[in-house]
Every structure is written in C-alpha cells, then in structure tokens.
C-alpha cells in the first residue's frame, strides 16, 4: 500500500476510527497494530508476510534465549544475524552474486551460468526488506549488549517490528526507543495531533508536488536514447534529482512520523535539511539519520570506530560506507556511490578543508556549494542505469561543453525553485522571526496548511512509488 494511494487514505481513516478503542489495552492495541500492518504490507504481496513473521520469530526467540541462557548469548546472536543477513542475501543479493560469479568465471575462461539457475522467487525483492531486517537485528544486538531487555510478549514484539508507518521505508526505529513507547497508553494532545497533521501535509507536499513533478524530467534525461552533451543540462538534472530523491524519501518519513504522532508515538527525525550541510561529515548527520546512526552503532563502532588510529579509522569508515552503498542496492554503481562518499569523507578528514574555507568571507556559502557538488557527483552513480552512463554524465558535467541550457520547463523551474528556496531559507535562518503575533499566527496557520493541502491535490505530479521502496 502506498501512502500516496486512495486505498491508503481509506485504510488510514478506518485505522484511526478503530484506534481509540483498540489502544486502551496492551494486547488489544498490539494486535490492532499487527493486523493493520499486515494488511498494509500484504496488500502488496501477502506471501512475503511469512518472511517478516519468520525473521521476527527468529529474533524474538533469540532475544528470549539470550536472557534465559546468558552463556549462549554469542551463539544466539550469530544465529539471529545469520538469519537476517541470510534472508537479505537470498532475496536481495542472490541475483547480484550469481551475475558476478558468472562474470568472474568467464574472466578465467569458465563458462558457467549460475545467474540463470537462480529461482524466480529469489529475484523478487520484498518491499522494505532492508528496513525491517535491520530493525529486527538491532533488537537482538541491543539485547546482546545488555542495552535492552527482551519483551516476553510476541504481540508486543511484532507491533514494534511491523508497525505500518515505518515498515517499508523507515525510519529504522530501534527497539529500545519504540518498545517502551508501545507499553504506554497515552492519548495524543491537540498540539501533538496538530504537529502530526503538519508533518503529514508537509510529507505529501514533498512527495506528490515536488518529487513527483520533478520525476518525469529526471527520468526523461536518464532514459533518453541519446544522452545530452550539455554540461549545464546535466548539472540542472542532477540538482533536480537531488531534490526529487530528498523530497521523495523525507516526504515518506514525514508522513510516517505524522501518523505515529497521531497514534501517540514519537519517531526520531530522519532528515534534517541535508543540503544545507557545510561539510560531508555534517551531511551524514542530516541525511537518512536513522540508517547512518544504525551503521555507526552496529558496523563502524564495532569495527573500532575512530579510536583505533588514523589509518584504521579511515579503513573502518570506508568499509561502513561501502556496505551502506550495497545496502541501497545490489549493484556496483551503489557500491561506487558509497565509495565516493567515503573518498570525500577521507579527503575532508585529512585536509580539514571545511574549517579552512569557513574562515574566509562567504566561506560558509562556499562550503555549502562544495559539499553539494560532491553530493551531486555521487548521486550520478546512484541514479545512473549503467556504469557507462554514469561515466558519460560525469565527463559531460566537467567538460564544460554543449549548449548552455537547463532542460527545465516552466513548471519544473517553479517546483525546483520552491525546493531550493525553502532549504536556503533554513540555511540563512530566514523566517525564524515571526512577522505577526503568536495569536494571529495561530489563527492564520490553519489557512496556510489548507492551501498546502489544495496544492497537494491540484498540483500533484504523475503518481509513482516511493524511490526508497526498492531498497
């Protein structure tokens, strides 16, 4: 079920009609959440519910086992991780591994066809598998580390694991953050409902007005029979893609956070205006925060983090970024995307260029531009359909050739301008001082949000899935 579909609107209306009655008792509340979440997920393909159930039961059992048999904690953790990584390997990476095995054997003169032997069901990527397996893994790892006590109630556990607002595209919520919240019964206040509504409307605006209207422009550029040879064109297209993916993904998490607020729960911030970053390090504290902090806590730090010497800390960071690239998709261009970010981070750590640049007049703005140039270059590999295409676009972006054109139509320009200006306002701290009194602001605020709703309905772009579903 997509948040931007009519069926989801009906589903949400029904859910929030039942929720006030369901939430009063623990088991009833959790059962209601599980049923709703399974309907939400099963709407796409009910067969893959068994995967969530299987993976969940494994981790629920492992959690209980670790408490009961502390001496076998390590073994149970390994079983849990193998189960989760195994399901990812089967459903997400088997085709990739098989294709690369074929290519590797061909290099040595062996003609093998492993890729064609991969069963069809293994080539279907279950929506959101990367999100819920990571969420599930964090549960057992936290128990292993003694940072969380396992729940003894299977409904409580599955309410956490399958909670529909964040099930398929995050944010990745840690068990230690959500499990305690699920134990409480707290009707949401007027302020929380209002904040939730603002998040939902803002999320829909980002997705259906900005991202969906920029999508045809970007898709057209990347799927053209003959790719443009204009430098300016590709810079504009990459800026458009940067905002398309940002609005698409952060729009989804805004809606998820808003729905959670309506239910009386709190999901942490997942995007914090990443394009106003003035260093690559800052970018990764603002982009997909729940994933980057997951990798920090469960990959980078266990590898030794930055406390094992300069050289090792670079290696750890490279490994983390390469795995993060692979997490996004089973293809080499995602790995290169992760590798490029690692390279930019390494250069930044060694040269400390942001600090140097920020000392000059206008240095902050210059740092912002330089960070975004790096991010855009990396996005080319993320979005390109083949490596050849990515290399061609990169060459064109830096060849300063072709006609001076943007490729943007009237409407594309407006949508892109809205996206860029709203980020610039945050960067320049514009609009932080209220122009009218709080009382007037409170009265006028609903009108402004009504206009945003009207824009979502009448300025929506051609509907499409959320980009991050494929991961």
């Amino acid at each position, binding site marked *: 079920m997509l948040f931007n*579909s*009519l*069926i989801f609107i009906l589903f949400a209306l029904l859910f929030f009609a039942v929720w006030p009655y369901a939430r009063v008792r623990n088991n009833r509340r959790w059962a209601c959440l599980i049923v709703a979440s399974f309907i939400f997920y099963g*709407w796409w393909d009910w067969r893959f519910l068994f995967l969530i159930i299987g993976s969940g039961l494994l981790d629920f059992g492992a959690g209980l086992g670790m408490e009961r048999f502390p001496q076998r904690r390590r073994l149970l953790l390994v079983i849990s991780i193998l189960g989760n990584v195994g399901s990812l390997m089967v459903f997400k990476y088997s085709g990739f591994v098989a294709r690369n095995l074929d290519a590797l054997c061909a290099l040595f003169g062996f003609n093998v066809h492993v890729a064609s032997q991969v069963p069809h069901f293994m080539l279907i990527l279950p929506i959101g598998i990367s999100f819920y397996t990571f969420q599930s893994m964090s549960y057992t790892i936290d128990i292993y580390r003694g940072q969380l006590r396992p729940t003894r109630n299977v409904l409580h556990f599955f309410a956490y694991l399958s909670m529909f607002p964040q099930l398929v595209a995050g944010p990745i919520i840690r068990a230690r953050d959500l499990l305690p919240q699920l134990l409480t019964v707290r009707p949401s206040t*007027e302020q929380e*409902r*209002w904040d939730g*509504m603002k998040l939902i*409307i803002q999320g829909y605006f980002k997705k259906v007005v900005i991202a969906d209207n920029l999508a045809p422009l970007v898709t057209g550029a990347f799927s053209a029979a003959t790719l443009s040879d204009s430098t300016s064109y590709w810079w504009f297209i990459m800026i458009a893609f940067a905002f398309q993916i940002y609005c698409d993904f952060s729009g989804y998490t805004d809606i998820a956070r808003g729905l959670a607020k309506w239910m009386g729960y709190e999901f942490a911030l997942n995007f914090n205006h990443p394009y106003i970053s003035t260093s690559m390090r800052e970018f990764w504290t603002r982009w997909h925060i729940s994933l980057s902090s997951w990798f920090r806590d469960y990959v980078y730090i266990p590898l030794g983090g930055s406390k094992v010497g300069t050289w090792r800390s670079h290696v750890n960071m490279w490994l983390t970024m390469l795995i993060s690239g692979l997490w996004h998709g089973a293809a080499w261009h995602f790995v290169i995307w992760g590798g490029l970010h690692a390279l930019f981070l390494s250069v930044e750590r060694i040269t400390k260029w942001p600090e140097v640049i920020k000392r000059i007049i206008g240095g902050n703005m210059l740092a912002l531009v330089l960070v975004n140039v790096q991010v855009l270059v990396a996005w080319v590999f993320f979005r390109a359909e083949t490596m050849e295409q990515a290399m061609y676009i990169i060459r064109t972006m830096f060849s300063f050739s072709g006609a001076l054109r943007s490729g943007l*139509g*009237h*409407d594309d320009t*407006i*949508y892109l301008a809205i996206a860029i200006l709203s980020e610039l306002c945050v960067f320049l701290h514009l609009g932080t001082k209220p122009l009218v009194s709080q009382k007037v602001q*409170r009265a006028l*605020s*609903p*009108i402004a*949000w*009504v*206009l945003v*709703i*009207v824009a979502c*309905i*009448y*300025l*929506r*772009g051609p509907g499409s899935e959320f980009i991050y579903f494929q991961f």
Partner: protein
Amino acid sequence: MLHDRCVKVILYSLVIVVLAGIFKPAPVDPLLRAKTEDARFWVVKTHFSGPCDMMLLGDSRLYRAVSPAAMQTVLPGYRILNFGYSSGGLNPIMYQEVAKRLHGTRLPKIVVLAVTPYSLTPEAARNEHFVQELTRTREDIYQRRYINPYLKFFEPTTPHRISRALRGKKVLPSELYYQEFHDDGWIASWIVPDNPAKALASYRETFSKTQVSPHLEDELMRYTKIWSAKGIRVFAFRPPTTRAMVVLEEQLSGFDEKTFVKRFREAGGVWLSFPPARYHSYDGSHLNKKSAIILSEDLAAKIRQYSVARCDTNAPSTLQ
C-alpha cells in the same frame, strides 16, 4: 471540537478544495483533457475477459483505424476486440494472448493481423505498452477502471496554466489532438489542423535503428499455420496510410510485401488489400475517424465474403 486546529483544517480544506476544483484552469489541449479516459481505455482493453469471436492484433495504426462496432454493422453477432497497442508487435507473446481470449461461440473464429513493417521489428517485439498495461497492480487496475472516472473533478493542473489563466491568456497548442475512446478497443482520432507529413521523420529515425526481423516473419507464418490447422481463419492486411509513408517503409524497413503475402497465403492465411486513396491519414500514419469507419466496414465486408456463411443472430452484437 471546532477549536481543534486539525478539525479546522479538514473543514476549511473541504470547502477550498471544492472551490479550487471548480475554478482551476482546465487544459486547453484535448489530449491532456482525456487522460482519465485514456487510462481507463487501456485497462479495459488489456483486462478484457468476455467472450470474443474475432481478435485484431497490431499497433496504433490498427487501434486508431478499425472500429469493431462499425465492423459489427456488417458482421452482426460477431464479438470483436481490437487488441492493438502503441508500438505493438506481431510476435508470439501477442499470439498467445489470442489463445487466452478467443473464447467466442461463433464459428469460424477469426484472427486479423494488421501488418505494418514496424510491428515485425525486434523493437516492437518488446511489447512495452502491452506489458506495462498487463503488469499493473490489481489496485491500479481497479482505480483506473472504476474510480478515476469519478475523480475527474480532482484532476491536477499546473502552475504555468494557473499563471496564464490569472493573466487572462489562453494559448492554444499548435495542434489539437482529439481522441474518442471506445470499449471495444478503437480510438477514433483526428488532429486539427491535418499534417500528413508529421510521422515521416520519426519513422525514418526508427528504421535507422531497427528493421523487420525475418525471425518474427517466420513466427507469424508458423502461428498462421497453427491457427489454420485449428480451424481459426487468419486474415492479414496492411493498414492504409499515405503514399509517402508506404514508400518510406519500402525503402527503409526491410519489409518485402510481395514475398510476405506469398508466404502468408502458403501458410493458410487470407491477405486483404485496400485502395489507399479511399482513406485519409491525419498525420501520415494513422487514419482519421471518418476513414477508420469506412475501413472497418470494408474490412468486415471482405471478411464476410471469405468466411462468414452463417450468422448466429442470437449472439450479442457488441462487446461487453
């Protein structure tokens, strides 16, 4: 409750959304205005499950040129489906659809192939349009078929259109593309003004990249033999178009009509010819509405001559 800002927003939104829907500028271009009908049309065609006695396969030259309803005036009782798709191919994937759908009660059952050089190219064999429609989710199909027609009021507009409307400017596109969608698979279409040279450039480019595939010709002959052996009558014709387009296709596509017709007849099919001068193409490729009706009646008349001796008058006369 009315002090709750969420309630206020919902109530105000209901009013403003209705007002905005009434006053929002509609697109001037009829092509954009018909998007809902267009989406519904392809879903209805692709997921058509009713009984069918005659199926027509081909590309856009077929689905814009042959009206099953007009054919039924000559062949009463025959349930006919125009199964043409944009850039549609004649290839085994489409032939297998015939077996799934030709479940009518009338005899003989009939397959009509609209043979254009493009439909026999590997590019057309990707059947992209057909596959896109076939693989839509249940939810999408249901929405396009039953819900979207009621949501036409909420169709989106654009900032550019709003700004022009506010400035009182109404700029007509250089050409107006009109389409009428019929549930039997026909799209009646015409352009104002006519431009019979319009399609030539894109076809020239297409045939510089793709050519008629001998393998796809062989497959067509193979299926013609299979169908004929099963008692299905197989007809084929080259949809009439402009003389300039025929010359271009002869020169660039690698299609040899004479040899093709000879092989098709040997495989058991019946080749039908139509004098191009009788029909008018609005863009150098597709027939306009009036010509499409004439061609449909001509086609039905020729099919009747060859194969329909008995007519079951009890059968319904239109596709449901």
